[in-house]
């Protein structure tokens, strides 16, 4: 039972990270109907920017840990968001009225570009986050031994997701994003600046992805230039699982996937854990072809 609860916490913190990345996929998909394959690499860049701040800049030397975390989070989000906006301008906007699969190839190309850019700057080997920030502290709760960093990661992702939910549901900008997701032309007719909405989405999505990268660095300590592919794929799976384009769906999908994965590696086999994830995905899609929260789209004839 205790082991189960430990695994549950592992799953929840990992799931929170998947959910943050998945939100970027699902928001971009919502407004552009494009799978942004470069999103996983933006996540990697977030992890590396965090690494630079910690190791090269030595941010913990000048400020206390809490402030350091806030500064790191803000810098990473700002930097990756800038890249995201640039990516959309350079690689996606010129293809907005082209066949959809052409934009997918452009996204795959951008992914290769970012991945190799990280490799050229940092080298191909693993990089290790210094473990000073959380000093291996643990939280004791109901006799359970909870590493502080996991609780922290889970809390941050929950807070960010709640904020995003209110941003999308309650603000005017959020309403504009939802409108563009439904119909570009209709949104334009009611006076929404579609380009601006797309830019906002490419600020928010990549910022969340970059933040997730930073959290993976803090949580697992080890980062590498290729890590974006597997995290990206899992997060994309999570977005599909929840119903792509659906924001609560991405959150739910991420959490479910994180739990499935840690349970699979604990009780089944670590070597097969990724396969288990995909088998579950295929089974769920067989029963619900548009994901758990995805709407059943009856085609207008």
């Amino acid at each position, binding site marked *: 039972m205790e082991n189960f609860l430990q695994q549950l916490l592992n799953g929840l913190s990992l799931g929170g990270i998947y959910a943050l990345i998945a939100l970027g996929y699902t928001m971009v998909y919502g407004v552009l109907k494009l799978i942004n394959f470069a999103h996983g690499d933006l996540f990697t860049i977030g992890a590396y920017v965090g690494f630079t701040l910690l190791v090269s800049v030595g941010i913990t030397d000048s400020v206390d840990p809490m402030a350091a975390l806030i500064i790191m989070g803000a810098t990473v989000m700002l930097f990756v968001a800038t890249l995201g906006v640039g990516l959309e301008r350079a690689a996606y906007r010129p*293809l907005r009225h082209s066949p959809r699969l052409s934009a997918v190839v*452009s996204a795959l190309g951008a992914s*290769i570009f970012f991945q190799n850019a990280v490799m050229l700057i940092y080298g191909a080997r693993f990089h290790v986050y210094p473990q000073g920030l959380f000093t291996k502290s643990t939280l004791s709760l109901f006799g359970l031994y909870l590493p502080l960093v996991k609780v922290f990661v889970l809390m941050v992702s929950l807070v960010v997701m709640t904020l995003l939910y209110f941003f999308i549901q309650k603000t005017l900008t959020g309403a504009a994003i939802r409108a563009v997701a439904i119909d570009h032309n209709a949104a334009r007719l009611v006076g929404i600046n579609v380009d601006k909405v797309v830019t906002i989405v490419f600020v928010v999505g990549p910022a969340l992805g970059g933040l997730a990268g930073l959290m993976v660095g803090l949580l697992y300590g080890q980062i590498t230039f290729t890590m974006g592919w597997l995290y990206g794929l899992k997060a994309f799976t999570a977005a599909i699982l929840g119903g792509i384009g659906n924001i609560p769906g991405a959150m739910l999908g991420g959490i479910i996937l994180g739990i499935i994965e840690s349970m699979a590696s604990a009780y089944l086999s670590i070597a*097969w854990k990724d396969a288990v994830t995909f088998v579950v995905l295929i089974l769920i899609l067989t029963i619900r072809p548009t994901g758990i929260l995805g709407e059943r789209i009856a085609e207008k004839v």
Partner: protein
Amino acid sequence: MKRPVSFNPLWVFFIVIFALPPLLDPYWVDVLNNVGLYAILGISLNLIVGHTGLFNLGHAAFYAIGAYTSAILNTKYHMPILSILPLSGFTAGLFAFMVMRPIIHLRGDYLCIVTIGVGEIVRIALVNNIFGITGGSNGIFGIARPELFGYVIRSPHQFFYLIWIFLIITVVVFKRLEHSRVGRAFNCIRDDEIAAQGCGINVASYKLTAFVIGATWAGMTGNIFATKMTIISPESFSFWESVIMFTIVILGGAGSIEGTIIGAFLIIGLPEIFRDLSSARMLVFGLAMVIMMILRPRGLIPPKLRSYNVRSILERDYSV
């Protein structure tokens, strides 16, 4: 009145290519061999992606099944490698039929993630030495060279003819398939599923057919790959391979065989030309993918409308 002569520059291209190997060193012939293999894979994927409009990013799985079938039957049961060619295709096709059948109704991007998932499941299964026959991450080595009429194919120059003749057969088979009732049914599904049903096309069954044909062909290509390499391992069938095949199809021009061949030249050939850039090579490659798509969003050679010989009918029945 003269009948319109249909002339395809593709055949001139093949004649030129076949004259090349004696002039090239083995290294460049091997590059041509890889181009040929990817062109075949591209054409098989083109049927699924370009013609039927199904988003498949897991084609490497079918390629892997064919290659492993060949490798296992050859190394364990010593069957002559080329005699397994049809069987490699059959296993890959059967696999495609079984896994795609329950999920063939998934729409666009949902199908995409599922094909990626199938590709990953196959790769993970190979790495984990499933049934104890795939050799884990080391793979299988000692696969025999092909023998044709008592003549062993060994050097890149000899493989060139095997691969490129197979490519020509592929082009003929897929051209004929395209230009037929079945090919039109695939295109109808791509353009409008509801209207396709309205023409009496069983959409699910034709989608599955496209997958099975494409997978069968990729499986046979896997056989040739296995005998060319004599050693195969799971890393030859990663997601990256599926991405390359997909890019070849879209960059060349979805639905166009000529485009797919040109696409294979670019995607396999370009990195060779950038070899001097060494570590920055893939950076440039990624950038080139983005730029090429922006410059030619419909691909290098978009498919042309198929032409039918109706002039005689027009003359006979009514004046135009």
